[in-house]
């Protein structure tokens, strides 16, 4: 049966399918890339580039649609949300999809400078990883979230380890075992929650938590506590952050840069689940998680900053900065006010771009330092000092929250949003760690750029950074600058996103009100 479809019809159709496309497109392109592997790297790059371009358009469209203040539910398989799997594109998920896509574009560009030749299946794995990430952001079903976590993780194992050896393999083993352990706990929590509440759809769960029998509350709390541990482990919150520095610092640069968004998935999951399922509609369990998260976030921030100070290598430094940014996010969301969540979302996007940029620029530096690589304890030569210095300085200023870049705005938004009763602690920690970050970065810059020595005659000169590599860094930094210049509109968006998150009733209503096209909502 062939249906006649006119152009306009197709377009509206595509619009209706918007929430599924960020998952579907990378999956399809990933499969196509697998089949295209025999045709050489040029074809793969072309397909990848096409995939990224299409995905970027889709992500932009998704954000624009979400900005119309509707929570779009997409009923996969045309089943009502409680029976099947619903995808949910609200402001927050759309923003994260766009962030991921933009970051990924730059990472891909960087990888196309050569790493993609060395790592078997790179392009396919990269697309599949995007599918996993976008799926995790868009799904409205807790078990489906687990599945997309796994898609994302297993693809990340491939990206991390393909083409690697030695210490990277050990780091990979740790990363994998830790994540599997976390996933196991995830499943335990899911089993318990289903067994207690009888659903996996988040909106349905939210409603059922609110109506739960008082004698079940302790059990539900235990189950969701297990879940919280899982998400915090992914987000590298204290004391679950120990795995991250080694894994991230060992990853190939474009992959590490993409990983900048992986901790954010954990943060997002906490934000989504604990603002919706255990949000204001949750009755006796409303908001119980936040009291754990604020001190943990503060402590993580301190420890991560100390780690940054302690780092002996550039990549380790950046890895700790990633933890610090996730910790800052936790602080923001656990304050659980509209302002702080809005600030958190802004900071999330900022820190994703800047961490990505840092991983890439640090890789460029490492390659231009000859045998010393990214060792921070010794001074060595450095080629292309001026350009790399400029890139590093921009990223460092942004990541440390120095003005005028996005990090500063994010920090101000956060500080401004801290409720009066938490000001003393949060401000002291945030400001003090900012200073320590500045100290760490100044030390790094001084060691790397200012103490650079002449290139030794005995060693061959490394190839200069390719245009694609530099362009990737510039692109990510430009996103940050864009976030600074257009901070107003962006913050209007994150404000509205925070409003959506704090009103779970709307979400629940959307889940109920979205009826299947073909089927009856209930038999």
């Amino acid at each position: 049966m062939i249906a006649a479809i006119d152009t306009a019809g197709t377009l509206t159709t595509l619009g209706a399918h918007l929430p599924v496309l960020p998952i579907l497109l990378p999956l399809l392109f990933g499969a196509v890339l697998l089949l295209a592997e025999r045709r050489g790297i040029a074809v793969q790059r072309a397909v990848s580039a096409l995939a990224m371009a299409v995905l970027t358009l889709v992500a932009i469209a998704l954000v624009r649609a979400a900005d119309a203040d509707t929570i779009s539910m997409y009923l996969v398989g045309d089943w009502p949300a409680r029976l099947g799997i619903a995808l949910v594109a609200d402001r927050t998920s759309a923003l994260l999809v766009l962030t991921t896509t933009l970051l990924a574009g730059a990472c891909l560009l960087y990888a196309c400078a050569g790493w993609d030749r060395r790592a078997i299946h790179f392009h396919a794995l990269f697309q599949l990883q995007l599918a996993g990430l976008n799926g995790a952001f868009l799904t409205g079903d807790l078990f489906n979230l687990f599945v997309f976590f796994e898609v994302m993780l297993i693809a990340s194992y491939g990206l991390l380890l393909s083409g690697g050896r030695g210490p990277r393999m050990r780091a990979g083993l740790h990363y994998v075992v830790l994540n599997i352990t976390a996933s196991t706990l995830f499943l335990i929590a899911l089993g318990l929650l289903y067994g207690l509440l009888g659903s996996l759809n988040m909106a349905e769960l939210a409603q059922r938590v609110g109506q739960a029998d008082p004698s079940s509350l302790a059990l539900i709390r235990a189950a969701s506590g297990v879940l919280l541990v899982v998400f915090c482990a992914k987000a590298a919150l204290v004391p679950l952050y120990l795995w991250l520095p080694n894994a991230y610092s060992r990853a190939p640069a474009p992959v590490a840069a993409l990983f900048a968004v992986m901790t954010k998935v954990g943060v997002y999951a906490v934000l989504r689940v604990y603002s919706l399922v255990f949000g204001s509609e949750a009755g006796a369990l409303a908001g119980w998680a936040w009291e754990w998260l604020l001190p943990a976030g503060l402590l993580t921030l301190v420890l991560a900053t100390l780690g940054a100070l302690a780092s002996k290598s550039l990549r380790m430094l950046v890895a700790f900065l990633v933890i610090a940014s996730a910790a800052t996010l936790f602080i923001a969301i656990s304050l659980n006010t509209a302002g702080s969540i809005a600030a958190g979302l802004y900071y999330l996007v900022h820190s994703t771009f800047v961490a990505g940029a840092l991983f890439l620029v640090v890789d460029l530096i490492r390659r231009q330092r000859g045998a010393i690589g990214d060792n921070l304890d010794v001074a060595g030569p450095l080629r292309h000092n001026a350009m790399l210095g400029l890139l590093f300085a921009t990223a460092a200023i942004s990541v440390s929250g120095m003005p005028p870049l996005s990090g500063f705005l994010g920090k101000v938004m956060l500080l401004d949003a801290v409720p009066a009763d938490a000001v003393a602690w949060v401000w002291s920690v945030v400001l003090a760690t900012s200073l320590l970050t500045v100290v760490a970065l100044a030390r790094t810059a001084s060691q790397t750029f200012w103490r650079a020595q002449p290139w030794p005659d005995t060693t061959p000169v490394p190839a200069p950074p390719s245009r694609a590599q530099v362009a990737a860094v510039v692109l990510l930094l430009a996103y940050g600058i864009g976030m600074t210049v257009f901070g107003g509109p962006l913050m209007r968006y994150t404000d509205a996103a925070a409003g959506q998150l704090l009103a779970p009733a709307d979400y629940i209503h959307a889940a109920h009100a979205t009826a299947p096209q073909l089927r009856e909502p209930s038999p």
Partner: protein
Amino acid sequence: MELALASLIGLLSAAGVYLLLRARSFDVILGLTLLSYATNLLIFSSGRLVIGKPPVLQVDEAGKAIAPTLAHYTDPLPQALVLTAIVIAFAMTAVTIVIAMRNRSDNGSDHVDAGGEGMP
């Protein structure tokens, strides 16, 4: 029945955790396997324990469909979840095993921290 299954889940978890905390990659893999058994049983048990009522719709002797309710069939959803979980756990096990092989080959030991020079 519930007590037996719960005790088994508990024992499997404990054994899995204990092996997970050993320092050798193969022990860790065994631990993960045991943990995944525990997990699968736990998810499975969230549909409650019912003997002899598999969720495959049947007709009775008269050829009439048996009413599709929980009185005649067990909850199918946890089973579907466990299936997915088994498959994913298998995929993860495969990857872990291969990484363990590579780790041993690259770093000269199957200690999970082999080749570690601490933190760079």
